[in-house]
């Protein structure tokens, strides 16, 4: 085969984010994206990186895994990760350094890029070729195709734009990478994570969201009641998060999370551009709102102009009845 396409010349490094011993969904999406530029190496670092590497080596498209054991990497501190990424790049000459678009990826990738005087490319939605990337600006109102002249491209890839790599069936080579000396300028104190057994917002097939029309945090129980039989995640707009109705990790939008579920049900949300930026790639969108002029109706596949306090309980009844059959 003499297909010397530009795409085969790259050498990609994906920085793994581990959640409970597994690659995060954002990392799996980044792996799929990375295969577009060439063979994929994963870098995993932390106190239990040795075990995690075995898990990563089984992810199908992964060619090799770099393991760095060191307690300093355990909490994703960018001060520690950036020199390590740098060491990996210098040792193996990667042309691309990727991570998923998550709080971790957004924190680490630009800092690593600064060390090589490269301009990072955040939230890539499409890789056109090894130098050309697509991303959104102005809250998703403009789709921009950009070409990078940097020697190394540091990108975060948007999870909702790339399929997740298949876990299992792979057999990547595992190699050690020496730990860099601990920097110690930042110290991890604690994690305050919301523990919930409900489906994760970023990965749920169905998302039900509430906006100001919900009127109070208590009323979000109505959304949860509908969400339970559907195995759906519950989201919110910035307005209700700001009002303290629900915790901030539920926020969907330009400055919150980006979701693209099969089905998005918006309740009492007007559809401001900042919110729509975080969910407009959902497959089916339905809207419940009393205001028939709400901008959300312009992008919704299905809409009902009615009081959500009437619609939601009735809808929940019907879903439960159908599930019971």
């Amino acid at each position: 085969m003499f297909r010397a396409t530009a795409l085969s010349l790259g050498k990609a490094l994906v920085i793994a984010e581990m959640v409970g011993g597994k690659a995060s969904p954002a990392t799996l999406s980044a792996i799929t994206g990375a295969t577009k530029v060439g063979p994929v190496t994963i870098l995993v670092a932390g106190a239990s990186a040795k075990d995690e590497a075995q898990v990563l080596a089984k992810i199908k498209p992964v060619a090799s895994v770099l393991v760095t054991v060191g307690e300093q990497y355990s909490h994703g501190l960018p001060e520690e990760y950036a020199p390590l990424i740098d060491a990996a790049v210098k040792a193996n000459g990667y042309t691309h350094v990727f991570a998923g678009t998550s709080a971790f990826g957004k924190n680490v990738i630009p800092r690593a890029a600064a060390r090589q005087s490269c301009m990072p490319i955040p939230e890539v939605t499409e890789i056109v070729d090894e130098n050309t990337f697509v991303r959104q600006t102005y809250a998703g109102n403009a789709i921009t195709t950009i070409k990078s002249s940097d020697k190394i491209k540091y990108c975060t890839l948007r999870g909702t734009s790339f399929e997740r790599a298949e876990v299992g069936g792979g057999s990547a080579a595992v190699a050690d990478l020496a730990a860099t000396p601990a920097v110690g300028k930042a110290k991890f104190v604690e994690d305050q994570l919301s523990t919930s057994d409900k489906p994760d917002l970023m990965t749920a097939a169905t998302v039900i969201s509430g906006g100001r029309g919900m009127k109070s945090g208590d009323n979000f129980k109505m959304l949860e009641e509908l969400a339970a039989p559907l195995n759906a995640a519950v989201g919110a707009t910035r307005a209700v998060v700001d009002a303290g109705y629900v915790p901030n990790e539920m926020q969907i939008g330009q400055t919150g999370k980006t979701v693209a579920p099969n089905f998005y049900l918006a309740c009492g949300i007007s559809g401001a551009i900042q919110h729509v930026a975080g969910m407009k790639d959902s497959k089916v969108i339905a809207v419940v709102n009393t205001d028939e002029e709400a901008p959300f109706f312009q992008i919704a596949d299905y809409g009902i102009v009615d009081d959500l306090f009437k619609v939601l309980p009735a809808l929940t009844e019907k879903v439960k009845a159908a599930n019971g059959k």
Partner: protein
Amino acid sequence: MFRTIPNYLKVAVCVKRVVDYTVKVRVKDNKVQTANSKMSVNPFDEIAIEEAIQLKEKKIADEVVAVTIGGKKAEEVLRTAMALGCDKAVHVVIPDAAVDSVEPLAVARILQKLHEEIMPDIWLLGKQAVDGDFGCTPQLLAGLLDAPQGTFASKVEVKDKKVTVTREVDAGRQVVELSMPCVLAADLRLNTPRFPKLPNIMKARKKPIDTKDVKALGVDLTPHLSTETVTEPATRKAGVKVKTVDEFYDKLHAAKVL
């Protein structure tokens, strides 16, 4: 030079002039049309300014310097920052033609140069600007300065020469402790910005702005990213509106989502 007294800090806060976040921009002729759009202070920078002023009110900081990098008109965001309580300002002037092509990396480089001059203990920035949506200037600056970074900050406490930052992460919050100098990036939940009062707006006109030509700083502004095309997102066509819950359910059921 080291500052030894802990409650005597200097804070530099970075402000960007952007198209107002409520404006829906249009794409035409392969370009985002921003001429004649309403411009304002980037909303995350308002939060950064508020935090800087609160540090001063708590007598943790004794001086707050507002910094902007932008065209001539960017001066107005500095006046706003000073009306809110910043003591003085630095304006790095970019030729108007180049304003749109200045990348976060160049901005971070300029700030790195200013660091030598201002010597702040804390840099406060917004977590992202709502025009480019890059969200990487704080991290780049921290990387260039080799200073620790507290991004997506929702709570900041300064004590004993350490800055404890609560950060908003995907599954909740993470608390980190940073040495100074450090770079912080404000998230929405950090605070609620105040509005400038009229007498303060008047007073702000008299506060000093140190205007610098970007050329004098010797930072290369050549973009690393070139824009090939800019398009509008694919438009979704409006669907159907129904009258009753039964009909609503039936449609959603038929679409196989319920």
